[in-house]
């Protein structure tokens, strides 16, 4: 059988060993440190040579190794710290020497960046084969790239806010939003164009949300949006301006009777039960209206508030109704 003694023996001078393994330790059979690599000597708070290995180092893993025989037989990765420099974690491998001693080759584990900073290590402190410097390079690169990505994310977030700010669409229903409604209203008034304004508020919507949950509520709002779009003309503006509040602008329409007709068709359709899964949601709607030709000089805020007042009157009169604001009343 092959015996360890018949393996070719490599002998190496202390200087060469220090260059190839700048963090090595040689231990004699009694466990005394006979030589220490220059980098290890540099980070040790006290001299190492001549002292017992187990008095200078704490072996964390594997547990239970307390003497030179244990080290010689360990064969796996060791985790240890140097006394007086306990925050620098070291890892190493113990190799049994023919004289009964041990050669320990150590390195910084994942604590490398801290160790380099704390002990002001340089390229020369690492073996030329060691990838420690590349690891530091990668950490630095990673930090820079992360900073760039962070910046990019911040800018994109800003751009997204601006885009949302400028958006004209209500995301849930696909209807126009309040901003779009305000803009169109101002345009029509600036152009002196006649138009009708409808303010619609859902009745019993809160009960749908409370009873069946928000998913049912969202479903109802989308249904309402389809009804409102279906009952109006292509160039009318249908906007969702609040949770369950809608404004419809009807360019060219100033006939109160026709507006009543449209409003009642909408209310009739909204009175129909809306299936949601195996449940049925019931709502209705109240409408208040204002007509631009009723004003000598129509103003958006005035017309909206008058339509709102008419809506309130509809609610007051028992919901499911439509009222046109009368300027003299």
């Amino acid at each position, binding site marked *: 059988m092959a015996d360890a003694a018949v393996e070719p023996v490599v002998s190496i001078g202390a200087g060469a060993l220090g260059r190839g393994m700048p963090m090595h330790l040689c231990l004699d059979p009694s466990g005394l440190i006979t030589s220490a690599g220059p980098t290890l000597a540099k980070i040790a708070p006290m001299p190492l040579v001549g002292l017992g290995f187990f008095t200078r180092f704490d072996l964390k893993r594997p547990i239970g190794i307390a003497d030179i025989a244990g080290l010689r037989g360990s064969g796996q990765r060791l985790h240890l710290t140097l006394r007086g420099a306990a925050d620098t974690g070291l890892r190493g491998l113990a190799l049994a020497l023919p004289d009964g001693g041990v050669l320990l080759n150590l390195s910084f584990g994942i604590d490398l*960046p801290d160790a*380099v*900073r704390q002990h*002001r*290590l*340089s*390229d*020369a402190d690492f073996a030329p084969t060691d990838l420690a*410097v*590349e690891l*530091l*390079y*990668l950490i*630095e*690169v*990673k930090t*820079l*790239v992360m900073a*760039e*990505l962070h*910046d*990019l994310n911040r*800018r994109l977030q800003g751009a997204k806010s601006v885009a949302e700010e400028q958006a004209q669409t209500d995301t849930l229903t696909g209807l126009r939003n309040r901003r779009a409604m305000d803009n169109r209203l101002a345009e029509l008034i600036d152009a002196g164009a006649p138009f009708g304004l409808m303010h619609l508020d859902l009745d019993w919507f809160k009960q749908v949300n409370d009873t069946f949950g928000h998913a049912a509520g969202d479903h109802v709002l989308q249904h309402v949006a389809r009804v409102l779009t279906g009952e109006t003309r292509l160039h009318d503006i249908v906007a969702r301006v609040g949770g369950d509040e809608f404004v419809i602008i009807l360019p060219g329409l100033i006939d109160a009777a026709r507006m009543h007709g449209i409003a009642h068709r909408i209310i009739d359709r909204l009175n129909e039960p809306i299936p949601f899964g195996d449940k049925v949601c019931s709502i209705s709607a109240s409408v208040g209206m204002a007509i631009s030709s009723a004003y000598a000089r129509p103003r958006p805020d005035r017309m909206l508030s008058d339509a709102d007042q008419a809506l309130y009157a509809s609610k007051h009169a028992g919901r499911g109704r439509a009222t046109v604001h009368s300027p003299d009343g």
Partner: protein
Amino acid sequence: MHGLMNRAIQGFLRDTYGEDLWARILGSVRLHPDGFEAMLHYDDAVTETVLSAAADQLGRARDTILEDIGTWLVSSRTGQPLRRLLRFGGVSFTDFLHSLEDLPGRGRLALPDLGLPALTLHEPQPGVYDLTCQGLPGFSHVLIGVLRAMADDYGALVLLDHCGGDHDGETLRIQLLAADFTEGRRFDLAGEG
């Protein structure tokens, strides 16, 4: 071309010649008003348009602008992180020169899609190096600027010449006259500050 390289051109022009010049260039190029994003990719033609707009505006040759970009990349305030990354290449300027062949690989470690050109170093005689750069036309001019600034950083005295290009790439000649001409700048592995 990677956004980082485009950002370098943008950073150099804004830093060196001011916002007015950059605004004039932006005006003549179809680009987002915010300029280039570091982490996006751009068509090579966009980069060329920016460079020729800069050359027109400044009345300077494209190659000398590229060379100045190289110097700025390493010696300006903005360039300090890159200077550090390059210094990881070696402890002496000679070491650094030899590490240049690894540069595309190091670039890939940082950003897999960075796309640095292949670099080959020959030493036809002691102290004389030929560096060949394949791909990314004009990069050799940027490299001249980078090498000049890095020689300063290491404290080395060098002579740099552009030997022109052919289908095998563009070649630079580097003559190292003195490796320790000056003290150079200190490089601390652990970082600065």
